[in-house]
């Protein structure tokens, strides 16, 4: 790699390669010897050191608060600094795409590999059973999903007040406008009406076209079929108790312990992974429930891969959030990200391009740490 002959001086590129540690031992030794005896090269080396440090400093300035924030968010402009990127992000078209889509992360994996490896990361679309929000803990899990990208953009990087979060979605606005706020007391009285679950399809009815809903329904059915077999491994492998060895209880926190939320549920949250098949009509995925002092409420499905990666999935009307939690020492860590297929307006089976999905880290780039906790309370 050294590109200079004896008696000549190394060129600037070679000096940078040397300072970057890219020369092998012989080349480095030759360079050192030469620089020791060549004042001109020594000055070039000093200059190169300055350039390397200076350029690195300038590059790190790029990581400061982004320049586009200096402009009011309400004045979309095409700036000379290339921030037209911003224009690409959330458009009515994209928001409408997000509003009609229903898919889990697992579809990516299972669609192509379900016959090969049934224990991979799986997610199945399923209704999220919720009750009405009570203070601080329970909001509809599919809120914020009608326009997930838009919501992701709008959502500040810190935890949001629950009500703001709910109102952010068109679904929630519709619910809010059509239904009075209710609260649910501890279930001492079985006659207390449980709010109807915000149906995945029903919730999107206000904003999705009929064709899209048909497609979404088909996708839901398809994913359910594809994943059932794989999920059966988890179900059959685990004892039929409510907190089996294959599941257990975990406390989910945001990394660093900063206040945060995952799809509207404040962190830290305690969850119970159960292998129990749910109520009649349920597809029978192992589910995970949020555990509060007052209740356990199913909010999603979970799977465990052969590599012992735990996959927690919350389903929504337009997007599904999956957290992949990779084991590491005492805890598991991972990222929560939203899975949104790019389009589903065609009734035909998804082509390879249509199967392409967008993984987005959840709003705020949520990084989750899971700690196993005792299930007994």
């Amino acid at each position: 790699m050294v590109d200079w002959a004896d008696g000549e001086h190394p060129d600037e590129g070679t000096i940078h390669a040397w300072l970057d540690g890219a020369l092998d031992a012989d080349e480095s030794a030759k360079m050192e010897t030469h620089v020791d005896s060549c004042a001109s090269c020594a000055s070039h080396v000093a200059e190169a050191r300055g350039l390397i440090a200076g350029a690195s400093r300038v590059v790190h300035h790029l990581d400061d608060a982004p320049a586009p924030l200096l402009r009011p968010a309400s004045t979309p402009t095409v700036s000379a600094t290339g921030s037209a990127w911003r224009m690409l992000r959330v458009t009515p078209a994209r928001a409408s795409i997000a509003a009609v889509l229903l898919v889990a992360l697992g579809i990516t994996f299972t669609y192509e590999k379900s016959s090969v490896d049934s224990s991979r990361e799986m997610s199945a679309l399923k209704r999220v059973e919720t009750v009405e929000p009570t203070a601080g803990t329970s909001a509809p899990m599919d809120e914020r999903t009608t326009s997930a990208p838009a919501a992701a953009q709008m959502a500040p990087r810190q935890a949001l007040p629950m009500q703001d979060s709910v109102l952010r979605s068109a679904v929630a606005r519709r619910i809010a406008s059509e239904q009075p706020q209710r609260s649910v007391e501890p279930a001492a009285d079985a006659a207390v009406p449980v709010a109807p679950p915000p149906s995945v399809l029903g919730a999107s009815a206000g904003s999705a076209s009929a064709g899209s809903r048909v497609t979404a329904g088909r996708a839901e059915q398809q994913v359910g079929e594809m994943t059932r077999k794989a999920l059966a491994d988890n179900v059959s492998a685990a004892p039929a108790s409510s907190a089996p060895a294959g599941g257990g209880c975990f406390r989910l926190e945001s990394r660093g312990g900063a206040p945060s939320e995952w799809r509207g549920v404040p962190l830290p949250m305690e969850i119970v992974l159960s292998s129990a098949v749910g109520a009649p009509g349920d597809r029978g995925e192992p589910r995970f429930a949020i555990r509060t002092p007052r209740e356990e409420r199913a909010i999603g499905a979970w799977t465990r891969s052969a590599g012992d990666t735990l996959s927690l999935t919350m389903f929504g009307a337009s997007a599904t959030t999956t957290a992949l939690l990779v084991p590491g020492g005492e805890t598991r860590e991972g990222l929560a990200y939203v899975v949104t297929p790019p389009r589903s307006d065609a009734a035909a089976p998804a082509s390879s391009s249509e199967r392409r999905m967008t993984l987005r880290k959840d709003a705020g780039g949520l990084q989750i740490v899971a700690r196993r906790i005792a299930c007994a309370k």
Partner: protein
Amino acid sequence: MVAPDRLELLFKTYHDPLVRFLTRQTGDRDAAEEIAQETFIRALNQDEIASERSWIFAVAMNLVRDEARKDMRRRRRLELMHEEAKSEAVVLPGPTSMERHDDQAMARRAIEMLAERDRDALLMREEGLSYPEIASALELSLHSVGTTLSRARRRLMEAYERLQAEGSKAPA
């Protein structure tokens, strides 16, 4: 196809550096996130990846270029619409004095003054890619990586210092 387990590991290992690299490239964190995700999706459909880091950065870089081309087309359309509406030239807003004095804005302007390849090589190096990885990602000879990096660093510093000098002369 890359196994999901492998993809997870790729995601875990390279996601953050890749997003930082792309944010530095584009100046837009959200666009960077989207391109990073697209990169990992492409990895999923890849049979085999010999040199993971250079493959991932090379694919991401190409996606940036694709997006930039689309962006240019959109921008041209937008400008045409403006011209039709106002029948006068669209004057893109210049940087504010606030931005002019801002290190970040100056760094962005300086980095954008670099030739594409120089910028790519420099930002990859800042993410810790080795010379062979940079050579592979940019399809350069190994020797020319040092030359490319030295040129990129020199030009970046020259541009940055020039902007600083202009900023200090400009009225606050």
